[in-house]
């Protein structure tokens, strides 16, 4: 098991046909992003069709998991009882490298709260929440 940052009582995602490849890959600690199999445009969150060419065919691309912090919010109020000992935590919107600007909602862990700013380089790390669920989190990356 990996390091843990969030409690077991976090909401667990319901998996649909559209999103199963994302979560299956995460179990293997691989970050994959959906692309339109017809026009190649990245899209996230995974959706059943491409809003640009309306193809229902999807492909999946493994990405390196590096990117930059696009925006963030530091949550100080425990919005679930199980988060009382976790706050403050950082919700991070990460712009992923190699995806045409695709952004992922995740968390920035182990980062000093007083030095956060958009543009910081980050890289994926993984949190095994249960035998059937692994989620991507992000850490600050020292080199660009």
């Amino acid at each position, binding site marked *: 098991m990996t390091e843990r940052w*969030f409690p*077991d*009582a*976090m*909401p*667990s*995602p*319901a*998996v*649909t046909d*559209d*999103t199963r490849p994302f979560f299956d890959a995460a179990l293997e600690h691989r970050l994959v992003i959906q692309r339109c199999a017809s026009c190649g445009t990245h899209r*996230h*969150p995974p*959706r059943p069709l491409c*809003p640009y060419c309306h193809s229902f065919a999807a492909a999946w691309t493994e990405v390196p998991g590096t990117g930059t912090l*696009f*925006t*963030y*919010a*530091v*949550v*100080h*109020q425990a*919005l*679930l*009882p*199980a*988060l009382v000992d976790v706050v*403050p*935590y950082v*919700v991070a*919107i990460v*712009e992923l490298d190699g995806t045409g*600007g*695709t*952004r*992922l*909602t*995740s*968390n920035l862990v182990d980062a000093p709260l007083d030095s956060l*700013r*958009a543009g910081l380089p980050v890289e994926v790390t993984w949190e095994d*929440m*249960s035998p059937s669920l692994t*989620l991507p989190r992000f850490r600050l990356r020292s080199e660009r």
Partner: protein
Amino acid sequence: MSRKACVVGIGETAYTKRGAATEREYVLACRAILAALSDAGIDPAEVDGLAPFADERSSPWTLASDLGLRQLRFAATTAMPGGGGACGAMLEAAMAVESGQAEVVVVYRSLCQGQFARIGRTEATGGGDSSPTVMEAGLEADALQAFTAPFGVLGPSVMFALPMRRHMEVYGTTSEQLGHVAVTQRAHASRNPRAVMGPRPLTLADHQGARLVVDPYRLFDCCLETDGACAVVVTTAERASDGRGRPVAVLAAAEGTDGAQLGGAAANAGATATGYARGGAAGVARRLFGQAGVSPGDVDVAQLYDNFSGQVLLGLEDFGFCAPGESGPLAQSGALAWPDGSLPTNTAGGNLSEAYLQGLNHVIEGVRQLRGESTSQVADAEVCLVTSSPGIPTSAILLGRA
């Protein structure tokens, strides 16, 4: 006379802190509607349309029966969600009376967060210390939450903090500028006897010293949690000319969203990088001003949706009162303050300081301004802009003298 839509009645129950209402939410809905009809001088039997919005629990069908409507001819709920819908409900009502589908439509909202789930918390979607909550993905909108809630995006405070932080990063908007919004609205509330926070003065130092809820939002950047209900009566100009009230014209109404905001910023679905820190209502604004043949410079007073202080800033930008990125300095300059600001805004205190009725109270304050009855009355007000929530599919109206 024309069938042009007019507001002829407004009504509300007492607004109280969450949990302080002594009657059930549904009873408050009935009382607010009867108060608005009394204000309009219209017999409840003559109401033939009802237009709720958001997740309204008081259903038009039971209200039609309990209020003794002779005949319900029209009932519709705008699909603009939550706080995006108050002005959309006004659009439904205006379309109904202007098309002849109905003669008298009541727009209403009853919301007692002390009796049901709190909107700002995740109790409704479960979560607890013992067992993990497996989310349901029955609806596509819920499916998007699989990419937000497991990461702690557990309520509006997180959802709306993300684009505001981006606004601060890109444009240099500051927490103090957000504080000016909150402090200005509290000053307006101090003159409004209905305002829940009216008796509690707020200084910029108080704002800056308050605890962080979700950085960048501090306690007084967040809307209230209250109990109450309110209602607005819409009919035609022709019918209004017979009434005893002073009608206020619905000059224009529009709803929708720019593509960049579909799904909301927290989920990232569809939002472009340049559209991320915008409210997504620029298209609504263009259509609204176009319909009425007026420009932002013609607006004398505004009620801009404020579930969080920064949402007011996004409203100022989307509706053309300043360029993107300039709303923080505009608020800091005192522009939003009554009586001396160039655009007195949220003159009853808004969601931050009057009560949280998801913006129908903003419509009511707009009507009061045009009747000359506001407790922060803008002299000779002729045009009032009322907006619903930025950052989600939304709506807006322009009110004017009939």
